[in-house]
Every structure is written in C-alpha cells, then in structure tokens.
C-alpha cells in the first residue's frame, strides 16, 4: 500500500498537478510559438528543397548536389547536436546579427533545419509519385518546366503527402522540447525546474498532457484524411 501511495503522490497528485499547471503552461506557450513558426517555415523550405533536388539537366547538378548534401547532413545528425551547433555555436561566432538572435529564434532555426530535411523527402516522394505522363501532358501543351511543376505536378503531389507530412509535424511538435538543451525556457524545462523545487514528478505529467492534447487532434485529422482518400480511391475503382 505504501508503494502505491508513493507512486500516486510522486506522479499523480492532483493538488500538485494544479500547482504546476501555470508554470508549465507558461513554458508550453513557447513550445506552441516555436512549433507554429517552424512548421510554417518547413512547409515552404522543404518544398523548395524537393524541387531543387528534382531539377533536370547538367546545369542544375551543383544545386542538386547541395540539396542532397543538406538532406544527408540534417537527417543524419541528432537534433540535440544541431541544437548545440546553433544555440551555442552561432552566438559564439560573434557575427553581428546572426549571433544576437533570441534563444527562441535559435530553437526555431534548429527545428526548421532538421525538419526541412525530413519533409523535403516527403515532398520528393510525392512529386515522384505523380506519373511522368502528367508532366509530359503539361509540357506538350507548351508549359515550361516550372509551370508544369507549379500547376500540375506539385498540387497533386502535395495532396498525396499531406498525411505523412502531418505525421512529421507531430514529431516536430514533440521535438520542441529538445531545444530546452540550449536554454529555452519551454514546458519540459519549466517542468524540470518545478520538479526539482517540489521534490516530485507531477509537473512532467502536466507537460506530457499538454503535448498529448495538441497531438491528438492532429493525429485524428491525419487519420481522417487517410480514410477520406481511401474512400475516394475505392469509389474510383468501381
């Protein structure tokens, strides 16, 4: 009985839960801010990365190589190391404006750099899944390569990759907690402070609840989109 009581007290004490909420919520607002800005940037930059990686012809080869190198580097490096590079490295360089950004901005940069590499691959898969005959049809009508991409290929590709893309965004939302390692006072960091101060772990549960609460709607929305597409494809099969 004592052990059970201990567990309940250390992890699930409702009183402490209520006490910890304002602190952790203050931190979580920073997580929200970082995720929204990073997601908006990733949506655009990852598409640009995917398009650059798919550019045809020998003239575009240096760009393609750069895009591949970027993807390899940021997909292969643990986020925490990218965070140290950016969060400690850039201010240390004393490069004027780049070295004087707010720590939250560094957090946004870290997640944007890493997730652009991931989501770029998602977009690329989508672009490659659009049948070559679509591009041929667009080009045969006199549209340029970029016009064919913009009006014909990319719109179809984006529709197809929305579910995996949202899945990556769920990962990004959780990884906002990682930028606490460079000193961002977000939910996980504030939960840790509270935990140390209060001598229990209830504040972590509070932080976990916040993250889960915003992830569930996104997860259900993703499920909904997948189901919708499957229904449409079944309808077409008849």
């Amino acid at each position, binding site marked *: 009985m004592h052990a059970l009581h201990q567990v309940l007290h250390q992890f699930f004490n409702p009183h402490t839960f209520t006490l910890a909420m304002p602190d952790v919520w203050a931190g979580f607002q920073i997580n929200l801010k970082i995720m929204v800005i990073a997601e908006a940037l990733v949506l655009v930059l990852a598409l640009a990365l995917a398009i650059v990686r798919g550019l045809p012809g020998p003239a575009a080869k240096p760009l393609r190589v750069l895009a591949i190198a970027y993807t390899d580097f940021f997909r292969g490096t643990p986020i925490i190391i990218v965070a140290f590079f950016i969060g400690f490295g850039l201010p240390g360089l004393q490069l004027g404006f780049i070295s004087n950004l707010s720590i939250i901005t560094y957090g946004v940069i870290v997640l944007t750099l890493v997730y652009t590499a991931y989501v770029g691959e998602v977009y690329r898969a989508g672009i490659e899944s659009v049948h070559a*005959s*679509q591009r*041929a*049809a*667009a*080009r*045969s*009508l*006199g*549209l*340029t390569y970029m*016009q064919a991409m913009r*009006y*014909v290929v990319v*719109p*179809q590709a984006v*529709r197809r990759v929305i579910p995996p893309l949202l899945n990556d965004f769920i990962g990004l939302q959780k990884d906002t907690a990682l930028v606490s390692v460079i000193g961002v006072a977000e939910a996980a960091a504030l939960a840790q402070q509270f935990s140390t101060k209060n001598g229990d772990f209830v504040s972590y549960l509070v932080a976990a609840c916040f993250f889960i609460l915003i992830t569930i709607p996104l997860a259900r929305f993703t499920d909904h989109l997948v189901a919708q597409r499957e229904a449409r494809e079944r309808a*077409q099969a008849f």
Partner: protein
Amino acid sequence: MTEAGSPNGSGGPAFVHVRGVSKWFGSLQVLKGIDLDIPEHNVVCLIGASGSGKSTLLRCLNLLERVEEGEIVVDGQPLTDGKVDVNALRKKIGIVFQAYNLFPHMTVLQNVTLAPRKALGVQRDRSEEYARALLRRIGLEEKADEYPDRLSGGQQQRVAIVRALAMGPKLMLLDEITSALDPQLVSDVLSLVRELAESGMTMIVATHEMGFAREVADKVCFLDAGRILEEGAPAQIFSNPREPRTREFLSRVLEAEKAEGLG
C-alpha cells in the same frame, strides 16, 4: 513565327518534313532512319504493331523525346537544330495521348484553359469563353465544372483533344487515342477527329482503327521495327499492299477484328 517561311504547294519543303530520324533507348534502336513528308491540311495515319515506333515518332515530333539523328522541320521551323525554343514550338503542335492524361485535380474547364492562360497569356474570361465554345461543339459544355474522374473514357479523351485544340495548334499528333477506350465509346472520339480532318487540320495519327485510317487518311504509313516499310494512299495500302510484312500485319488485324466481332 515563320509564316513567310512556310511555302505551300509543290516544290518547297512540306509542312512536316522528317529526314533520316533515328532514335535509341539505350542500345535499342526504336527508329531507324524515318523519312516522311506531309503537306499542310493532310492527315497521315501511322499503322503497325505495338513497338514498331509509332508513338516514339510522334513524341519526337513534339520533342517529348530527343531526336538523336536526323532532321525534323515543321512549318519551316527546324526542331532538331538544338536552338529551337521547345516551349514556343509545342504551342503550335498539339499531342493527345492514349491514356488521356487529363489533370485530375482540375475541372474540365481548368484543364482546357490552363495552357492558353499560362503559356499564351490569354485572359481568364476570354480563355474560358473559348473553352466553353469548344466544349459546346463536342457536346460536353455541361461537364465544364466536373472533375475528369466523373467523365467516361470517351468524354475524357474528347476533353483531352479540346485541351490541345484550345492552344490553336497547326499540327495535331494523335497517339492511339482510342486504344484505351471501350468499343462503344470509340465512335464519339473518332467522329471528332473526322470533323477535325474535314476542317483542314494537319494531323499525324497513330492508330489501330484500320477502318478509320482508310476513311480519313490522305496517306497511310506502315511502320515495322522502326522503319516506314510501306506508304501510300489508303486504298492501295489496304487493298493491295506491296510488302509481305504489311500483308501479314493487316491480315492479323483483320482476324483480331473478326474474333472480336464473334465474341
């Protein structure tokens, strides 16, 4: 534009002028020195077994495939000299594919107006007006705001033809455009092509519809293993083919049609 450099009538170069065109896919040679001349307002039908090079030849004429050897001139404009503005050229040469290739995320109207608006810079209102007029001509005006997956194969293919026509091409390339259709949908598409032929459109038509070729073509070319083995007036090719390979091909097609008729 090269209106001045496109002589009509006899003596000058033909509207479509193909000389010694060869094409390889890797080590496989799919076109072996094709020569072909087509006067303006003529319809040429390409017949031959699958893999004989009909589609590749059409795709070369629209530079969807690179021509590795030989020369193609369309309307006085050399396609194969490496300096050609591919996008400008394609505005004059329409191609329709076996699989329609409509854009599935756009309505019929958007499919038809996309290229005129973006490649020719036509205003939206004007391009939509023209598109609706074209759709009316083929009896599909009420489908203008539908998405392609709501249309039958025959309707989709007619929209694909209209989409190419909306660019005001001077040459149309039709690549087995009825091959993917159910038999009862073929005739609507063919009658549209017939109408185009009567309106004087220059066309090169790869087809398995021998009856249609016989009726519409000014000239029929029989392709075999990447060569034009025999060419001539439809009556001659179909009634009195010179080459044994042509005879063999035609009798096989005739048998297949008979078998289909019985089944």
